[in-house]
């Protein structure tokens, strides 16, 4: 615990340092300090996951009227580990990335405060401590979105959306936690010990409230609207942290409150979690395929993966409640593995997107292309991470999704109707999103890195600095390691899962390098698959070299014999996704505008043709905009209350006086 506090202290020191020293020192020294803090926190978390111990800390000197309580248990440690891992990358990345507004005093300080809170929220173990860290996390991330506010009205709007959503979410969580903590001293251990005495209605009510808040943070549809606005607008290291760690903490909250504090509750809680997951996964994947803004695409893909994670959480909850603890553990471990894997590859993708934006000045895929030639390292990082998110064997996305599918598959053995519905919907959602994710990320890599540059920015791109490359490389490691030897993490996952679920069982996964479920049935040895793939690749390569000519000749692309090939003739991201957009037009509701200008002489000849295609978030348009309009209308209407007339003001008091007299008489 002391080391953990020291890690938090180092992050705080980095924040303070960033606030006081000069620009050059600020960027380098405080970033390194921050990275060290994250490394230390990660080390502590790892040790707790290995030993399975739990340690607590309480001081009444901080946080008036309640005191600060921190508890490190394996569940918290796993989330801290994931955040710390991405945190290291974000700090190192900043050394090369921070310029302009991001290098400012405020932004750098807030970055380290944000990292600090990401490390602290999972450990906070009383209502006030949790809300304090949670709100500080929300505040720092909201302000970080505003880093480029002077030049981007989108950033201002995004921060507003995010702030409002997160505040309502926090309110909901607060009320839920306070209800759950009735009759206790508000520490999590006391809530956990006492919650079984609460009435079922109260517990359910508390859970629903908490779920609303956490689901919003986790980016679950329909509470996701802030996410595709906020994640793209934040500076890339912040986007990486938000998308890989902060949304995961939303899931952490659900697990912590639902399973640990309220002991699982009833089945329908988890059915609703899974339902949120199904909707999110599908909606997120669909929007990811049609987005052309690279970071917006990544943000929607985060919603997609979060949906899968929620499906797993829901499945684990349902199975745990209906007496299938072994499979429940399997599902929970799958979720946790997917969370860690997602932290890695989504972090890498966002940092890669940042590198692209840094190098080309745009993140619009329609204006990129050919970057594999100029930015090979970034291309490698994005390529591997994209493959991982597409669940290409033997990368981390594959291992974790396979495990999740195994959880769902064996969940079918449970014959209760809610369980079957959850499993069925989960499988369908996984199946639907798998293909869509592939489209989205083939688009990212194929349009962004292959072909010819579609703009001068893309043509003049240069590879980014060493620190950024190192940071991106660091985040590729988990994709490969978790993918090839997932078995190495089973013990850690089992500890975290056991501290999450009230019914500890023997790990459903055997020890070893692969994932072998001998209690159930099913196994993969990704290491063997990896070796197999490599061997075949080498054999094919060698054979190809032996059997055919070695030298290759560069020629113009043939393209059915067309003479002239310009970059503008390539498929763009928009056109790439157009067929799918058409297929899912009923869900996406794309808006198309065609504007034809005819030549003056004849309307049969067109001078120019303007085609515009937009995909807006239907839920935002149909669900949120009317609410905002209504609120503004109420605001404008109620201005009449204070119309400046003193007669009216006096009348308010007179009426109140009469009411009092009548009531008391």
């Amino acid at each position, binding site marked *: 615990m002391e080391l953990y506090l020291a890690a938090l202290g180092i992050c705080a020191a980095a924040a303070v340092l960033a606030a006081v020293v000069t620009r050059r020192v600020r960027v380098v020294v405080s970033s390194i300090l921050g990275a060290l803090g994250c490394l230390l926190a990660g080390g502590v978390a790892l040790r707790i996951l290995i030993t399975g111990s739990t340690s607590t800390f309480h001081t009444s000197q901080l946080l008036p009227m309640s005191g600060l309580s921190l508890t490190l248990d394996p569940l918290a440690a796993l989330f801290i580990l994931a955040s710390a891992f991405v945190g290291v990358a974000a700090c190192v990345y900043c050394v090369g990335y921070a310029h302009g507004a991001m290098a400012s005093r405020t932004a750098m300080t807030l970055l380290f405060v944000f990292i600090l809170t990401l490390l602290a929220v999972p450990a906070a173990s009383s209502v006030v401590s949790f809300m304090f860290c949670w709100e500080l996390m929300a505040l720092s991330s909201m302000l970080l979105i505003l880093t480029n506010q002077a030049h981007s009205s989108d950033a201002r709007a995004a921060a507003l959306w995010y702030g409002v959503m997160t505040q309502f979410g926090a309110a909901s969580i607060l009320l839920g936690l306070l209800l759950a903590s009735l009759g206790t001293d508000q520490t999590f251990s006391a809530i956990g010990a006492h919650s079984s005495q609460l009435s079922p209605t109260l517990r359910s009510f508390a859970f629903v409230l908490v779920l609303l808040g956490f689901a919003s943070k986790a980016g679950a549809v329909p509470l996701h609207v802030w996410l595709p606005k906020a994640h793209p607008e934040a500076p890339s290291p912040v986007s990486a942290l938000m998308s890989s760690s902060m949304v995961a903490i939303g899931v952490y909250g659900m697990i912590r409150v639902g399973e640990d504090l309220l002991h699982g509750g009833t089945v329908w809680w988890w059915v609703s979690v899974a339902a949120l997951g199904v909707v999110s996964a599908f909606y997120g994947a669909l929007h990811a395929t049609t987005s052309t803004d690279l970071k917006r695409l990544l943000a929607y893909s985060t919603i997609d993966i979060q949906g899968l994670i929620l499906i797993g959480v829901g499945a684990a909850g349902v199975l745990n409640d209906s007496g299938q603890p072994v499979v429940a553990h399997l599902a929970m471990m799958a979720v946790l593995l997917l969370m860690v894997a997602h932290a890695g590859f989504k972090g890498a993708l966002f940092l890669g997107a940042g590198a692209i934006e840094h190098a080309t000045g745009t993140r619009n895929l329609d204006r990129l292309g050919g970057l594999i030639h100029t930015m090979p390292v970034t291309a490698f990082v994005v390529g591997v991470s994209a493959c991982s998110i597409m669940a290409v064997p033997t990368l981390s996305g594959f291992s974790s999704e396979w495990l999740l599918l195994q959880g769902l598959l064996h969940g079918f053995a449970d014959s209760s109707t809610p369980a079957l519905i959850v499993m*069925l919907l989960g499988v*369908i959602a*996984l199946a639907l999103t798998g*293909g869509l994710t*592939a489209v989205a990320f083939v688009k990212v890599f194929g349009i962004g890195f292959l072909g010819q540059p579609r703009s001068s920015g893309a043509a003049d791109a240069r590879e980014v600095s060493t620190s950024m490359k190192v940071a991106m490389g660091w985040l590729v490691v988990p994709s490969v390691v978790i993918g090839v030897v997932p078995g190495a993490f089973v013990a850690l996952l089992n500890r975290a899962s056991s501290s999450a679920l009230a019914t500890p069982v023997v790990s459903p996964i055997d020890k070893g390098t692969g994932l072998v479920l001998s209690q159930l*049935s*099913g196994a*993969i040895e990704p290491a063997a698959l990896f070796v197999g793939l490599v061997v075949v690749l080498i054999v094919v390569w060698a054979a190809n070299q032996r059997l055919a000519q070695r030298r290759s000749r560069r020629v113009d692309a043939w393209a059915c014999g*067309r003479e002239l090939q310009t970059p503008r003739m390539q498929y763009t991201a928009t056109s790439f996704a157009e*067929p799918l957009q058409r297929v899912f037009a009923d869900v996406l509701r794309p808006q198309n505008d065609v504007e034809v200008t005819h030549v003056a002489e004849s309307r049969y000849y067109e001078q120019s043709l303007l085609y515009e295609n937009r995909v807006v978030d239907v839920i935002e348009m149909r669900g949120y905009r009317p609410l905002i309009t209504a609120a503004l209308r109420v605001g404008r209407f109620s201005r009449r209350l204070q119309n400046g007339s003193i007669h009216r003001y006096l009348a308010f008091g007179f009426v109140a006086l009469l009411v009092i007299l009548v009531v008391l008489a």
Partner: protein
Amino acid sequence: MSATITTSLYGVAATLIQIVAVGLGGPLLVGLMAKVKARAEGRVGAPIVQPLRDLRKLLSKERLHARHSSVVLPLAPMIILAATAVAVAISPLVSTHPFLGSSADILVVVYLLLTGTVAAALAGLDAGTAFGGMGSSRVMTIGALAEPALLVAVIALSIQSGTSNLPSMMSSTIAHPDWVFGPSRLLALGALLIVVIAETGRIPVDNPATHLELTMVHEAMILEYAGPELALFSLGEAMRLGLLFSLVANLFFPWGIATSDSVLALAVGVILLMAKAALVALGVALIEVRSAKLRLFRLPELLAGGFVLSVLAVVTGLVTK
């Protein structure tokens, strides 16, 4: 100890036999289908071994790379080949316990096939031409729509067996012959057939024999391929076809597959596999002959049909359990 070594030796042998069988059999199946189609249309058609001859000829040609292409261009066919070969190696096609049988999970096969599709689509985008992009876009669209049907159909089969481990699935089917004609199986078979047609680019999803801009999907994607790379690409595609046909055949009719370690069993396994795959190929060829290619935007209806069939398969499987 020696028994273990023998078992692994047989496993290695089975794996190698499977790879060779699919590597040779895949192109032969393509040839067979062309032959069947030709005959059905009243033509003589090329010999069945024509695809193998084409491969040999392509391998001896000059290696040409398009100007703006990158390392993806030569790498993609190799990845397709590697992914398919590993999928073949782990799948119980000839024997129920090939060398990498511990990972013989049907989901792994599904994801390896997806990997191949991804590599191919990236290859199409690499040269930066309009045709390549069009092909990739269409292939990915079809793939994205076929994926749910494939995965859910596979899950339907796995639920029945209680595992997604391929050897276990097959041995449980052998143990329960009554499953073969159960409604769940038939529905899943229907879904899988549609998926197989989509994944292998056959009519009515795609026409492998056309180079017409409006109808082509796969061919547009590989437009920039020539020589040895084209040969590897075609081989990879043929092996995918072989693998899919063999898997479908074995999943629904696993009898004949070698369950014990003996040369005889392996030999029987190879021959029966050839026969079963040829039967599937015949069926698909006949479907091709009897149907016209669908418009691109009619395809979702077909694939959605496949998806619904597979969901029905799961549901009926759960109901009749």
